[in-house]
């Protein structure tokens, strides 16, 4: 009896100790745990309360200046059928600050209606739904756009034992997404996007037809798998009630055959492409005008009958006249390319994604370029005025 009691006690204490550890580890795991969630919610409440108080004390400021954008920010149907040309920006200060956005707005005098940020897939906290950043963009009166990059190797096998080993994930990765292997991640984003409740634009797996840049390119995937993956993502979001998401499909038009990646009219709200002039910074590049980069592809893009976005718009200053490049591109944009409804400046100071030395795309300090593109703000249109007038 005595011995039996001892063994029972030993077992009980072992189980209890394992239980305590498991309970606590479970209670506190990574960024998804209940502790973190409560804190996140609390942090969001603090941020929004503070913002409301500041607005009350200082007045609405920019939100009022951009009052005409209110319809876009709250109603996805308006954003899907825009009745004016919107400007926007990706700024490399994001997500630490939006000051760069406001500075470029002051410098160009274009209201930055859309603020773009980049988000990669993965387990890390920065790879989760960027609610705080979206709240901040919404709080200054703009529409957030997330360029959502499916970097599949940032999921750890220890947390997702059912996924293939990291080295094997990129090949056929889009097919894996289409088959539902990444629904655990997509669904979390979908739920949080639905909870955001304001318009958010998502540009998923952009430049899917570029075989050199990203792992979701054709070197690893077939076009039909991209289409299946895209539809899967959109369907999961719709199923979660995230109808406030506006979907932006964004091929790289310099590579032929991008039409094969079209997911279908009912799955896409906007069509986007980049228009970056690398000038002579690299051996593979030369000075291209905006018309050469974008204009010759405009007819086929316009044929898709969606509003068009220049999602990454910019020129370096090496190898040509930058001020002229911008004024040529913007000077006649609305007449030449009437379906273009958004131009997003690429305000990146140190870009080394494709070149060995960092490229400076920012124009906020380039007075010649600013002078060339500065013009009266596009007048906000009356809500019932038809587009194109």
């Amino acid at each position, binding site marked *: 009896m005595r011995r039996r009691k001892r063994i029972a006690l030993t077992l009980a204490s072992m189980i209890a100790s394992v239980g305590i550890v498991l309970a606590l580890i479970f209670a506190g795991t990574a960024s998804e745990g209940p502790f973190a969630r409560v804190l996140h919610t609390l942090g969001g409440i603090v941020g929004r309360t*503070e913002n409301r108080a500041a607005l009350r004390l200082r007045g609405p400021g920019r939100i009022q200046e951009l009052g005409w954008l209110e319809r876009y920010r709250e109603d996805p149907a308006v954003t899907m059928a825009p009745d004016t040309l919107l400007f926007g920006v990706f700024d490399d200060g994001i997500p630490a*600050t939006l000051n760069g956005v406001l500075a470029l707005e002051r410098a160009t005098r274009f209201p930055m209606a859309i603020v773009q940020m980049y988000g990669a897939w993965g387990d890390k906290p920065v790879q989760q739904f960027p609610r705080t950043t979206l709240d901040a963009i919404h709080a200054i009166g703009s529409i957030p756009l997330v360029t959502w990059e499916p970097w599949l190797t940032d999921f750890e096998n220890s947390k997702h034992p059912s996924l293939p080993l990291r080295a094997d994930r990129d090949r056929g990765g889009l097919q894996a997404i289409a088959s539902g292997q990444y629904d655990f991640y997509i669904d979390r984003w979908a739920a949080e996007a639905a909870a955001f409740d304001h318009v958010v634009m998502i540009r998923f797996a952009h430049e899917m037809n570029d075989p050199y840049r990203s792992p979701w390119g054709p070197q690893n995937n077939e076009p039909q798998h991209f289409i299946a993956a895209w539809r899967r993502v959109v369907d999961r979001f719709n199923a979660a009630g995230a109808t406030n998401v506006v979907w932006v499909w964004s091929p790289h038009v310099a590579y032929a055959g991008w039409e094969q990646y079209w997911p279908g009219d009912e799955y896409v709200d906007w069509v986007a492409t980049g228009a970056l002039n690398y000038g002579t910074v690299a051996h593979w590049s030369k000075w291209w005008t905006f018309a050469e980069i974008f204009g010759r592809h405009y007819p086929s893009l316009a044929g898709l009958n969606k509003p068009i976005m220049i999602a990454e718009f910019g020129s370096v200053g090496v190898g040509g006249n930058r001020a002229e490049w911008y004024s040529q591109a913007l000077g006649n944009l609305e007449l030449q390319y009437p379906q273009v409804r958004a131009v997003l400046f690429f305000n990146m100071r140190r870009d080394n994604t494709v070149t060995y030395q960092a490229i400076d795309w920012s124009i906020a300090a380039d007075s010649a370029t600013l002078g060339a593109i500065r013009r009266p703000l596009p007048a906000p249109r009356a809500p019932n005025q038809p587009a194109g007038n």
Partner: protein
Amino acid sequence: MVRTLTPGLLTWRRAPTITTARRMVLHAMIGAGLLLLVRFADWWFRADHVANVPLFVVLSLAVWYGAGRIVIGWINVARMRIPDHMDAPSDLTVAVFTTSSPGEPLSMFEKTLAACSHISYPHTTYLLDDTRNPAFRETAERHGAVWLELTDLPGAKAGKINAALARTSENFILVLDPDHVPFPNFLHRVLGHFTDASVGFVQVAQAYYNQHRSFTAAGAADQTYAFYGPTQVGLYGHGAAVAIGANCTFRREALASIGGHGIGLAEDLVTSIRLHAAGWRSVYVPEVVSRGLVPEDLGSFFKQQLKWARGVYEVMFAELPHAARSLSWRQVLSYGAIGTYYLSGITAPMYLAIPYVYLWTGVQPASMLFGEFIAMGAPVAIVAIAIYLYCQQWLCDGDRERGLHLRGLMLKIACWPVFLHGTLLAIIRADIPYIPTAKEAVRGRFLRLAWPSLLLLLAYFVTLGYTLYDRLLRESAGNLMLSSQAVWGMMAFATVSAALSGGGIYAAWQARNPPTGATWDDIQLEAIQCDVVNA
């Protein structure tokens, strides 16, 4: 705050025995705690958490000093052991030493000496007196005590004890603080352990009867409960029960083997180390068989803490390195743990400064996600608190001593300038400056005691006001929302430390009018309840 003696204080109390089942539960909790701590450490020391290298190093030292002390505490309680009672042999010769010094109130000695005469085991009480006041002799002799005049001796109390040892012959000596009232069964609970010839001293708990008199007294008592319960019980399990200077019964032969009682600010600790180094064993009896006084006003408490801090460091620098070779590793670890207590005088201001540095300069030591920090750190904190509370079943007087001891924590936080002072004095090997007894204006005394906490509170409100103004009216809209969590998270930390410093301010405010009246008058010796076994 109740201003009368809490009922039940004058009753003999002891910690309950440790059953195998409860020890296993404790071991399970400690096991869980260690695993969680490893997990926390693995997360903490990630390279991408470093925002500012020097500050991160400083913060890590502070955090892991605290965590290290928690682990040492766990290691300690893991081996808690309560000795079985041993009946006292009937033929031992026992002396009770108590000391009196100029300025100490005679009425207190009336009580103490009367209580000594009530100790039922045959003994001789000696009053070691240097007051040069004939009334002390008269009082001692009226209570059947032997009066020894021991004036002009170096080494204060310890000097008198050594001189008295030379003039007496009893084999066992109980050293009793003059503010302690021993219960009649005191010696019966202790002497049996000397049956083992290797036992050099037997220590019992120190308990108090005046903790209800002020915030300081309550907080100071709070700080001792765990020490005289689970901590010393654990130290005994590790073979390192320490002598506290008071309520300690020594074997004359043991004291003689180390050349008498140690002298210095931490004479008790010195004596303890030397006895252990000489191979004597010690026994800790977790029982309340006497009650005494704890400092009631913040000034006295600070003075006591400064003395202890300086004294303990002296032991660490001067005594422990020599003795370490003769001590077991457990004893070295135990004494080392005692020695690191006062390092919080260095870490506390680091913690206090971090939110202010961030809120005013934007510099932060670590770039951790607050949510992750909580997710990793909270389980460790929860288990540490759970272990602390679980161990409270082995307090000597659980009914009265259990709790979160927040007043003790507040008082410890208020003490950081004192600890820091003691640390610095020890490093430069300087003596404690003479602190005159307060006879100055009341207001001056409040400010002298509370200024560090008041400064912190001032800094807090200025920072809070400035931050609100800056963020609501000036901060750019582009930054406002994106920096809100970091700023208000830091402000939350600052709020916690400011709130905790409120205790020190309150204690200093109370010290303007310390409680009056002789507490010992409340003690009715007839009210003491204890069973005298084997009388």
